């Protein structure tokens, strides 16, 4: 039972991470950020992605486990 809970928590974290990643891309495209800010945002997102993969490996959760199938609505995350 514990693993499903971990998978659910990691799904929510992954959802927020991908959402923030897209928002960061939009903000960078606006062009009103300094190069240093853009670099920091990129580094932070990269570290977050690595940390997410470590957590998934640590708990034995496959990346596709994080993706929920919402029936007629499609999927929660992209099936990359």
């Amino acid at each position, binding site marked *: 039972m514990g693993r499903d809970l971990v998978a659910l928590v990691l799904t929510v974290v992954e959802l927020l991470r*991908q959402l923030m990643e897209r928002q960061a891309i939009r903000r960078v495209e*606006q062009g009103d950020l300094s190069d240093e800010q853009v670099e920091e945002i990129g580094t932070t997102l990269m570290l977050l992605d690595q940390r997410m993969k470590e957590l998934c490996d640590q708990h034995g959760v496959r990346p596709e486990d994080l993706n929920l199938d919402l029936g007629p609505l*499609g999927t929660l995350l992209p099936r990359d």
Partner: protein
Amino acid sequence: MAADRAVVPWDSAEPLSGPIGVPLVDLLDRVLATGVVVSGDLVIAIADVPLVRVSLHALLSSVSERVPAPWADGGPL
């Protein structure tokens, strides 16, 4: 004149067929980019006994020149 227009089968009997092609996270991203206001009242109750009241007036939006951030830097959080 209106007779020749084919009626779009919107109210077809069977439900939406096939998943909508867009992942939900992309929809949320677009909603945030447009900006949305969520307002409403929530009451969390157990066995019909109201315990907690949540009154929401939330603006969810991407930061842009149209919707500026309330303070310059990242702020306390």
